[in-house]
């Protein structure tokens, strides 16, 4: 007899809330048809979402594992599947499977440490899961700094949550920046890598980076200028995937598969991989 467990067969999810974050980012709340969280996960892990007939794609789970009621996905409209997701309405069923990949080492390497989160644009999506996990277990971690930048104020994902919740937490410093001046913005203006260097963090902390590849590259270089070692910096990768199980071959980089050996990598580990991500 065959083992009837089949990881490629998804379960049903229902979209119970759609929040418009920016002109091209929406955050979708997903539960099972009986109203439960689809499955357990850890910060940094991903899930495969699909609309049958449109396609299936991998997204990082942006809600924290400490949220036991539902799952959230912040998704930027940029391809076939995401375009469709952006047009759906509350109550729509989709399919979901996961969780996939490793997680940020929130209970090991991060434990007891000061943490510096740096995100650019939609790169906040995977970090929001870790940040809210850390906020939930606040006494397990040291000081928290968050640097987040986007093209404009309107492109800052989760702006309301950042201002209403993160900024008000004790021991958390939030530094926001946008690429260009605009009338209703009195905060910092400039690119994330430069802002990080201007802020000049002490190096006795662990950094977590996510954003466009170019931002990651320059921010990592900036952190190294400040004296950070690559072993102190974590990031999360994303490549095209079909199975998310280490079998379809798409996300293979060197001897690693982003879907199962990642998506979270320590930056020194990336040096052992060819530059194909």
């Amino acid at each position, binding site marked *: *007899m*065959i*083992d*009837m*467990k*089949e*990881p*490629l*067969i*998804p*379960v*049903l999810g229902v979209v119970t809330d759609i929040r418009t974050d920016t002109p091209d980012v929406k955050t979708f709340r997903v539960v099972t048809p009986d109203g439960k969280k689809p499955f357990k996960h850890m910060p940094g892990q991903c899930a495969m979402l*699909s609309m*049958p*007939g*449109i*396609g*299936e794609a991998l997204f990082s789970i942006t809600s924290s594992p400490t949220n036991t009621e539902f799952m959230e996905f912040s998704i930027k409209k*940029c*391809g076939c599947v*995401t375009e469709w997701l952006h047009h759906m*309405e509350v*109550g*729509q*069923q*989709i*399919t979901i499977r996961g969780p996939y990949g490793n997680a940020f080492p929130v209970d090991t390497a991060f434990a007891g440490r000061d943490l510096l989160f740096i995100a650019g644009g939609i790169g906040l999506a995977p970090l929001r899961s870790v940040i809210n996990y850390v906020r939930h277990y606040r006494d397990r971690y040291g000081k928290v700094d968050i640097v987040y930048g986007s093209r404009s104020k309107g492109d800052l994902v989760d702006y309301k949550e950042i201002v209403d919740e993160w900024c008000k937490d004790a021991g958390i410093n939030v530094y926001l920046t946008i690429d260009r001046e605009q009338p209703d913005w009195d905060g910092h203006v400039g690119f994330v890598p430069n802002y990080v260097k201007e802020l000049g963090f002490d190096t006795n902390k662990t950094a977590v980076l996510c954003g466009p590849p170019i931002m990651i590259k320059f921010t990592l270089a900036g952190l190294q200028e400040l004296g950070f070692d690559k072993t102190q910096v974590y990031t999360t990768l994303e*490549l*095209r995937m*079909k*199975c998310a*199980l*280490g*079998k*379809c*071959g*798409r996300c*293979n*980089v*060197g*001897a690693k598969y982003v879907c199962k050996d990642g998506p979270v990598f320590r930056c020194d580990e990336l040096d*052992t*991989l*060819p530059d*194909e*991500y």
Partner: protein
Amino acid sequence: MRKCSLTALDALFAKMAESAALYLPVDGDDGRAHYAQWQEGLHLSDALNTVRSAKDFFFPQTENLMAFKVNGKTIEIIDTRTEADDFIVFGVRACDVRSFDILDTVFLAEPADSYYANRRAHGVIISLACTRPAETCFCSTFGIDASTPAGDVVCWKTDDALYMEAKTEKGSALMAALADLTEECDTDAVKAQQATTKERMAKLPLADLTADKFGGGKTMEFFSDPAWATLSEACLGCGTCTFVCPTCQCYDIKDFDTGHGVTRLRCWDSCMYSDFTKMAHGNPRLTQVERFRQRFMHKLVYYPENNGGVFGCVGCGRCLTRCPISMNIVKVMKNLGGDAK
């Protein structure tokens, strides 16, 4: 060891086909060997090997994974899997038998692929030792002995008889069912054939080919080799090498809306194709150089790194025969590392 006279081969096949679908290489209208389901009147091909590999039996080129019914905002997920029927594949060569071990490491690794596991559990492999390896053969490079393949049952075909030996429980069960058509025999004829085949193997043009310089941990050593640019220059990106390759297993998953529902299909894919890694925001392998490199680095460095040094090539030589520009893994192995011959 047991044997069956070649004059009784049809009776033997008929007996096997009573209990399970029997597939074997037969000569097609194109003059080449292809696997076909045995029926009265079909004869075992004398060709060295089939054009396509035997991977189709466990990992078909296209298969339905599941189905969906979409009605307004609701979706029904339909599990279309069924238990596979028992089947027998006869005449698998040593290289192709080894390819199943390689496919197993991918598909049976946790979480196992139930579609593949299902067929694997229901398939019996009857291998056939090679006697006249071709000049494109280099299985010995990867430690494969063409004169003594693995398999559930191993066969040696001489001028007058088929010699058979069960190697697994499945194989023993099959041999027990064939007891009336086979007789116990000594191994002299098989030993003589093995010796002759080995002599022939040693004289093949690729007999000295070695993969020693490759293996796990060599990513940075070979990744930036300037030879990739020249080796891949004429590559058409047609993917023929990946389709005939017994170990290539990259796949695509796509939905097809029939108008009455959605079928989710799995199809072979190829890392040689330009859209293999193409994402909404760009493509990490922009040119054929990178795609070409990926295929060979995977077989010679990445796969061994993750699988105890075993290479992801079995030396069947299909890519040597089929590539429209005559590029192949042998040329790659010879030209990388700066010691081109």
